[in-house]
C-alpha cells in the first residue's frame, strides 16, 4: 500500500521528555487511541523489564478551544458548552457555571431551585462514579461488575432524559434557575431507581471487595500520600482516598449542602483500592442526601423573578410588548453581567471544578477559564505510575477517572 505523499513529512505532534538512551531501557508508547486510555490520553513510558521507570503523560487530543469559543457567545449560550466538559455528569458543570454567573450578577436562586440543583448534582455524581468504577472494573477483567453498574447508570440516564430531554448533554441549568420543573411521577421513579441501586451496589460489593484478583490488582498499587496529593493539586475522591477529609460540600457549603447530613468517606493509604472504595461509599452518601432532599422539596418557583436573566413566560411574550422586548434582548444580547471577576468552585465528581469568569459588563464573557480537575490530575499522574508494573497503568489510570472533555477543553 502506498501512502499519499503529503503524509511523508508529517511531524510528530508530541516531543517525548526522554529518549530511549536517556531512559536506559525500552520506551513504549501507550495511546492516545487505546481502549484503556478512554480515547484521548498518551503515555510514553520507559521500562526496566516490566517496571515503569519514567512516564511522560500527554493530553490535549480532545482540545477544542473551549475557552476561546466562550469569549464569542452570550452568557446563556455557554450552558450547552459547559455540559460537554465532564460529559459523565453534565449537570454539575451546568450548575457550577450558573452559580458563577449568578454570583457575579448578585442573583439569589429560589429555594426550590437550590434543592433541585443539589438533588440533581448528587444524582449525577452517582452516574459519574458508576461510569468510573464500571470502566475501571471492566479494564481489569471484571465484566459482571461493569454490567451491573451500567444497568443502573442507564436507568439514571433514561430518568434524566425524562426530565431534561437528553441522556448526557442536558443543557438543563439556566442563569437564575432551571429549564423546567419536574415532570409528573419523576420522584416516584427516582425512588424505584434508588431501591434498585442498593440491590445492584450490594452485588458489586459482594463481587469485588474481597475478590483476590481485584485486591491483587488494586491494593498497594498507585499509592499516594496526602502531602504529595496536595502538592500535585489533587482534589475530590483522589485526595480523600489518601485519608484527607477535604470536601467542598462540607468545607465551603454551597447550594443546599449546609442543610444536609452526610459523611465524607476517606481512604487509608491512597491506592487504587481506596479510590474504588471511596467512590462506592460516596455514592451511598449521595443516595442518603437525595432522600433528604426529596423531603426538603417544597412547591415554588424554580427561576428567580429577575428580568436581567430569566426569560418571561411565553404567553406574555406573545401578548405584551415589554415581555417581547425583554425576551429579544436576553436572547440577542445576552444577560447583562456587571463588570468584575469571580471564581466559583463546586465539588464535581472528580474534584474541584472551578469557573473563573472575567466580565467587562455586557452580554459576553471577556475571559472564561475552567479549572478542570482531570487536567490537574494528569499533571501528577506520572507519580502514580512510576515504580509499578506496565500492566498497572491500566488499573491505575482507570481509578483516576480522567474525562477528556474537561481535561483538554
Amino acid at each position, binding site marked *: 500500500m502506498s501512502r499519499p505523499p*503529503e*503524509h511523508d513529512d*508529517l*511531524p*510528530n*505532534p*508530541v*516531543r517525548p*521528555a526522554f529518549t530511549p538512551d536517556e531512559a536506559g531501557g525500552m520506551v513504549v508508547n501507550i495511546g492516545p487511541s487505546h481502549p484503556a486510555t478512554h480515547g484521548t490520553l498518551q503515555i510514553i513510558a520507559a521500562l526496566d523489564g516490566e517496571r515503569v521507570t519514567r512516564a511522560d503523560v*500527554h*493530553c*490535549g487530543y480532545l*482540545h477544542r*478551544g473551549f*475557552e*476561546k*469559543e466562550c*469569549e*464569542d457567545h452570550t452568557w446563556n449560550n455557554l450552558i450547552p458548552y459547559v455540559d460537554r466538559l465532564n460529559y459523565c455528569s453534565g449537570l454539575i458543570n451546568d450548575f457550577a457555571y450558573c452559580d458563577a454567573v449568578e*454570583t*457575579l450578577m448578585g442573583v439569589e436562586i429560589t429555594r426550590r431551585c437550590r434543592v433541585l440543583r443539589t438533588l440533581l448534582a448528587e444524582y449525577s455524581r452517582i452516574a459519574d462514579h458508576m461510569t468510573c468504577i464500571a470502566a475501571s472494573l471492566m479494564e481489569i477483567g471484571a465484566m459482571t461488575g461493569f454490567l451491573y453498574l451500567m444497568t443502573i447508570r442507564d436507568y439514571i440516564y433514561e430518568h434524566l432524559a425524562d426530565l431534561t430531554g437528553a441522556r448526557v448533554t442536558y443543557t438543563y441549568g439556566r442563569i437564575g434557575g432551571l429549564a423546567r420543573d419536574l415532570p409528573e411521577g419523576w420522584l416516584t421513579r427516582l425512588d424505584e431507581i434508588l431501591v434498585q441501586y442498593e440491590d445492584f451496589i450490594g452485588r458489586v460489593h459482594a463481587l469485588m471487595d474481597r475478590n483476590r484478583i481485584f485486591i491483587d490488582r488494586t491494593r498497594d498499587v498507585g499509592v499516594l500520600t496526602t502531602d*504529595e496529593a*496536595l*502538592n*500535585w*493539586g489533587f*482534589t475530590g475522591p483522589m485526595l480523600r482516598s489518601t485519608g*484527607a477529609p*477535604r470536601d467542598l460540600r462540607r*468545607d*465551603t457549603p454551597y447550594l443546599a449542602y449546609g442543610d444536609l447530613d452526610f459523611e465524607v468517606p476517606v481512604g487509608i493509604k491512597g491506592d487504587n483500592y481506596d479510590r474504588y472504595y471511596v467512590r462506592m461509599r460516596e455514592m451511598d452518601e449521595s443516595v442518603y442526601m437525595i432522600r433528604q432532599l426529596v423531603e426538603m422539596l417544597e412547591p415554588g418557583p424554580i427561576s428567580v423573578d429577575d428580568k436581567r436573566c430569566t426569560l418571561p413566560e411565553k404567553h406574555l411574550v406573545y401578548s405584551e410588548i415589554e415581555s417581547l422586548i425583554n425576551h429579544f434582548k436576553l436572547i440577542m444580547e445576552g444577560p447583562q453581567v456587571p463588570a*468584575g*471577576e*469571580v*471564581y*466559583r*468552585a463546586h465539588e464535581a465528581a472528580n474534584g*474541584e471544578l*472551578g469557573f*473563573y469568569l*472575567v466580565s467587562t459588563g455586557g452580554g459576553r464573557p*471577556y*475571559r472564561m*477559564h475552567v*479549572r478542570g480537575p482531570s*487536567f*490537574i490530575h*494528569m*499533571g*501528577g499522574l506520572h*507519580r502514580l505510575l512510576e515504580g509499578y508494573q506496565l500492566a498497572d497503568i491500566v488499573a491505575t489510570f482507570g481509578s483516576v477517572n480522567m474525562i477528556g472533555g474537561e481535561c*483538554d*477543553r
Partner: protein
Amino acid sequence: MDRPPLTVLRERLAADGLEATESLGLLVMELPAPELLATVEGLKSRHGFDLFLDVTAVDWPERQPRFDVVYHFYASREHVRLRLKTTVPGDDPTVDSLTPLYGSAHFMERECHELLGIAFRGNPDLRPILLYEGFTGHPLRKDYAKNHTQPLVRYRR
C-alpha cells in the same frame, strides 16, 4: 461567636504585611511580578495555602502592562481561597515559575504558556500540552483570530 475564616486569615495576612481585600467569597491580593515567588513561599509556609488550584492570564491588548496573570490558592485547613494577581508587559511577559513550591504548577504553567504566551522563568518543561509541537501563536490572546486554523494534517482537496 466564630468569626468567618476569611476575615481571620485576612487579619493574619495583614499582620505579615500582606494587604488583601475580600471579593465574592475569596481573598484578593495584587502585587508586582518580581515579588511573586517570595510572597507565595510565605503564603505556603506560614499561612497554610497548601493547594495551588489554578493559574491563567487575561489579555488586555489596549492596556499597559498588557497581561494579568491570575493565580488561585486554597488553604485546605482554613477552607479559604485566595486570588493573586500580577501584571506583566506584552513585550516581556515573564513571571517566576512556582514549580519549586508546587508540583501542580508544572502542567498548569505549560497550559498558560502555550495558550497565552506567558513565560515562566524556572519551569524546566514548557513543551506544548494541549496544542502540538510546532503550533505558532497563542490562541487565547485577543489578537489571535478565532477562525484562524493551522491544521497538523492538511485538509483533503
